[in-house]
């Protein structure tokens, strides 16, 4: 019973944050509602028993990736959004279309997956087992992901660097 109440509370906060992200015009408000969504998702993971995933969600997603988004919004001084012809068309077609699509997916999920319940905290094992899996069964994806992150770091540094001004450098040399 308490499980259901907690799930509904955090689920409502998630959905409210997601709808707020779409409804707000200023990107900083959208960014902060996304942080709220990630926080309540971390609570949902705790309800499922995935404590390590919940902690990593807070540390990595809410505490690093979203800080990056907030930085960029602050640096570029993004203002409120303006409405163009394209955005009005998208509003008219996109929202009803996706709502119909979402309702369809929801109906299929509720019909098909049955009502087998999930208990609170039903995932087994301390983080030690996750570490074991990561370094034994999933070693190749782990190494490939680390190379991916290295490439992403180099790409981000190169893309965001200021263009070099060679003539001035030669003059001072």
């Amino acid at each position, binding site marked *: 019973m308490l499980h259901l109440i907690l799930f509904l509370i955090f689920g409502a906060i998630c959905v409210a944050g997601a709808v707020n992200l779409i409804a707000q015009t200023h990107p900083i408000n959208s960014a902060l509602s996304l942080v709220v969504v990630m926080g309540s998702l971390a609570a949902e993971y705790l309800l499922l028993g995935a404590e390590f995933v919940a902690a990593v969600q807070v540390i990595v997603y809410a505490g690093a990736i979203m800080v990056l988004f907030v930085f*960029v919004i602050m640096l570029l001084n993004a203002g409120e959004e303006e409405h163009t012809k394209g955005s009005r068309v998208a509003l008219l077609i996109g929202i009803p279309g996706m709502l119909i699509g979402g309702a369809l997916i929801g109906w299929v999920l509720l019909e098909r997956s049955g009502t087998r319940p999930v208990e609170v905290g039903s995932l087994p094992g301390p983080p030690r087992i996750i570490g074991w899996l990561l370094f034994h069964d999933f070693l190749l994806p782990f190494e490939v*992901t680390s190379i991916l992150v290295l490439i992403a770091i180099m790409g981000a540094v190169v*893309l965001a660097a200021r263009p070099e001004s060679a003539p001035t450098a030669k003059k001072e040399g």
Partner: protein
Amino acid sequence: MVPLSYYLLLGGILFACGVIGFLIKRNIITIFMSIELMLNGVNLSFVAFAAQWHALSGQVFVFFVMVVAAAEAAVGLAIIIAVYRTRETLNVDHVNLLKL
């Protein structure tokens, strides 16, 4: 006891909100944030299935999704900064010519 379908429904709602945001928003940073919202919905489905079938591989896969999302966010934001420097705008409708 919460049925599994409730968790999947929540993940589906988050994914749908992400797609709506991606389609209707014009600010490029908000579009990126909608992508992150979609990835979060998918993560919730992974962990819900891992809890039902008592398979820890679902949780491990969530880490990979998070790492890929982080890498994509970093590179995407660098591209946004580069585009802003040349075009002086963050509205995707105004970045519609190859010529500056």
